[in-house]
């Protein structure tokens, strides 16, 4: 029954009912503060001499794309498999995670990518070929790096290598158990596939003249390394039983059958000394020891390599230095050493060792290997009028690798660079950059500043080649106090395992350390904070009380400025400091 006197068909007029949207209220006017998304630089990237975009690589890997992560590494470093095994990892030294629990195993990550990632040379090939030809002297890490980057820029590159195979110290200095030759073959192979020609067995200054080479090319990059071992400077150094370390390692790596006595003493404290000791251990040395004039803290070798030494039963005598060699019936039987104490710092900044009077002692030894420093063997550069420093280094302007001779650049160990693989690679990269600026008439200084990472002497090659792609604030380095550690649980670091027991590993030259297993690598990747790289974790999107951050396929996130009240929860909660608030309240 319906009654006429009341007609209630429209509920809205009898009781309050709201259907219209609140979007007519533009609450964005409450504040002029709005968030912007700016990817920044991680401290590991700034610390890396090569300037690898480590954070971004970890991000891509966390999304499951190891190949893309590898590609990111290779934007700056063509030799990740090598660095992933032997680098001194300054990245880990500055890793923000170190302040939270333990640094991320970044070196292990680099190795993993190289071992398991796929290289897509098509993406690395130059977009256009240039007519200029470049010559590179030396196929060590500096020369390989320079060649790689020059080839990617489109230049035609020829490397002149004195030894039978390419690699320089990578092949002839670092033993197989630390860096398998297979890795070299693979990574140098990629460089060759990009069109770089390597002429081995050509010693410049003997088999070819530098002037002749220079005449045929538009620029030369000299990266001949430092293959001369320094002498100890004590009597008897020329005796049988006394070997120079670099030559010793080279001979082993050339495939020659090496031999030592049973009691081997290695003089020195760097990685060459360590490698000599561990090599000697593998080829017959029963009692192998290292004699080093400073203490453990000053030892230049990497801590993990020192640990390997101790595991392999090699003893280290700290604060001891040889005074003279002792013979018995014309054969080497021992070394007379003095104990040292540390005095004030010397020119290099390290504490000067001072012999303690009356502390002499004898170390029994039938073999002595000296590894007390390396110098370049680059007399051939005088042909072009280049001068050498007191220590035999080619004189260059370090900020651009230029020598006084136009068109001639030099880098790596032969030009006085820091004697680490990563620094040599960085030097080669800088050389390629400098040569490119030189040939194209660009202002090198300004270009460098544009692409420089933070305040350290590395720059982004990616940025140099294409500043518009994946914009990043290269000068904005994310400090630890800007990481929102509330978002992360504590978790122990995953270290690369040594699958062999030390007494097994010393019987072979098989690689001692192995890569991380995929599950452990995944775990370690999740430990990386990915400082400054937006990982699309969606926290900003979900936590916005005003539904003012939208997800956008193209750019990740988009802010609805009409509604954003400027509360800044997004910026303050972002785990990795990607969001900044601009504008005043």
């Amino acid at each position, binding site marked *: 029954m319906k009654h006429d006197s009341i007609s209630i068909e429209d509920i809205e007029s009898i009781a309050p009912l709201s259907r*219209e949207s609140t979007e007519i209220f533009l609450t964005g006017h409450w504040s002029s503060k709005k968030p912007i998304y700016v990817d920044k630089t991680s401290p590991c990237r700034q610390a890396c001499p090569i300037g690898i975009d480590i954070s971004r690589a970890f991000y891509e890997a966390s999304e499951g794309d190891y190949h893309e992560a590898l590609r990111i590494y290779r934007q700056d470093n063509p030799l990740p498999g090598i660095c992933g095994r032997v680098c001194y990892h300054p990245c880990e030294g500055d890793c923000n995670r170190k302040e939270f629990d333990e640094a991320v195993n970044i070196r292990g990550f680099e190795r993993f990518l190289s071992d398991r990632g796929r290289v897509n040379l098509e993406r690395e090939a130059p977009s256009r070929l240039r007519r200029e030809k470049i010559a590179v002297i030396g196929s060590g890490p500096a020369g390989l790096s320079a060649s790689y980057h020059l080839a990617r820029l489109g230049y035609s590159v020829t490397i002149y290598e004195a030894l039978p195979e390419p690699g320089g110290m990578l092949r002839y200095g670092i033993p197989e158990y630390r860096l398998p030759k297979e890795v070299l073959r693979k990574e140098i192979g990629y460089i060759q596939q990009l069109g770089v020609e390597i002429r081995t067995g050509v010693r410049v200054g003997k088999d070819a003249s530098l002037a002749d080479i220079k005449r045929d090319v538009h620029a030369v990059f000299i990266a001949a390394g430092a293959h001369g071992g320094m002498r100890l400077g004590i009597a008897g150094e020329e005796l049988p039983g006394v070997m120079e370390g670099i030559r010793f390692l080279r001979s082993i790596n050339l495939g020659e059958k090496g031999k030592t006595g049973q009691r081997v003493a290695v003089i020195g404290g760097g990685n060459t000394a360590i490698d000599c000791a561990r090599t000697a251990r593998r080829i017959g040395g029963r009692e192998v020891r290292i004699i080093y004039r400073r203490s453990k803290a000053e030892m230049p070798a990497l801590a993990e390599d020192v640990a390997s030494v101790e595991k392999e039963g090699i003893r280290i005598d700290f604060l001891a230095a040889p005074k003279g060699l002792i013979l018995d019936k014309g054969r080497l039987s021992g070394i007379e050493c003095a104990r040292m104490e540390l005095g004030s710092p010397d020119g290099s900044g390290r504490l000067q060792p001072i012999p303690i009077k009356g502390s002499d002692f004898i170390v029994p030894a039938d073999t002595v290997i000296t590894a007390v420093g390396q110098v370049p063997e680059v007399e051939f550069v005088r042909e072009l009028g280049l001068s050498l420093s007191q220590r035999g280094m080619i004189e260059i302007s370090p900020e651009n690798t230029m020598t006084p001779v136009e068109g001639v650049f030099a880098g790596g160990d032969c030009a006085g660079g820091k004697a680490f693989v990563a620094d040599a690679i960085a030097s080669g990269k800088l050389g390629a950059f400098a040569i490119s600026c030189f040939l194209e008439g660009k202002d090198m200084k300004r270009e460098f500043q544009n692409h420089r990472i933070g305040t350290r002497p590395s720059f982004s090659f990616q940025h140099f080649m294409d500043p518009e792609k994946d914009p990043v604030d290269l000068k904005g380095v994310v400090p630890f106090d800007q990481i929102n550690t509330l978002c992360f649980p504590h978790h122990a670091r995953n270290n690369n395992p040594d699958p062999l027991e030390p007494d097994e590993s010393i019987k072979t030259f098989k690689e001692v350390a192995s890569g991380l297993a995929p599950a452990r690598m995944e775990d370690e990747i999740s430990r990386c904070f990915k400082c400054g790289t937006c990982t699309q974790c969606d926290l900003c999107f979900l936590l916005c009380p005003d539904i003012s951050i939208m997800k956008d396929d193209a750019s990740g996130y988009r802010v609805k400025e009409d509604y954003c009240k400027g509360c800044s*929860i997004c910026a303050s909660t972002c785990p990795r400091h990607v969001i900044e608030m601009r504008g005043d309240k």
Partner: protein
Amino acid sequence: MGAEGLNIMTEEMEKEYMRPGHMACPGCGVATTMRLVLKVLGEKTIVVIIPGCAAVTSANYPNSALTVPAFHSAFEIAAPTAGGIANALKIQGRDDITTLAFAGDGGTFDIGLQSLSGAADRNDNFIYVCLDNEAYMNTGIQSSSATPRNAWTMTTPGGRRGRKKQFMQIIAAHRIPYAATASMGYPQDLMEKVKKAKGIKGMRFIHTLAPCPTGWRMPEDLTANSAMLAVETKLFPLYEIVDGTEYRITHDSKGLPVGEYLKIQGRYRHFNEEEIKDLQEEADEEWDRLVARTKGCM
């Protein structure tokens, strides 16, 4: 869990059921919590809201910030209102629609406790989400029984004497199928719990900590961080109670000192060493009790 890849988001959950342009204070924890809950529950939801910040911010006749049907009920009756709707839907054969009640700490711990207890006793079929900002914030920061001990409010200027009511214990005593604590500082955990609740029939209760920068006297950008700190200092643990007896901790607290949480909030500025120590002891003891309960020791 940390911020590594939220894997609960489905295509459904990309949609929004709350609109911008609402009148919440900048940095409002209640607004975010409501938004996340609605995201999970989706379109087929009827929402009951009672007087408080949630009501005043989500609608102002004739505009609504919600895109699902809602009803502004009276202060103490979120629970029977939701129960009435749930029963009516059942009668109509429409119980694919979720009934959801939002109530503040005042409407849950104090004036609404009786009716909530009745609904829990009847195991009425709806989800009750308590938006706990630890005081009557909408009326200007007056203390409730959810206000922590010694905290400042306008009606407890010398600090509140009572302890924060152990509300989950009250709920557990009713033996409802599902109860949980959650916080917008951990959106994945919150959304997982709402999703779980959605699939259960009967009474479901979620106690969320929704920080209030205005009332806690805190900078408005610290809402999520303070919510995380509450959990990491063990003051607001994240856990579930199934059938009132099975306890499960869903986030392992880092055990940060309570001072980390207190120092960012003006309502605790007056705390002296003694009070901080008391609070630390309280946090530690309650956590230990909770852990014991997860092992079946009641």
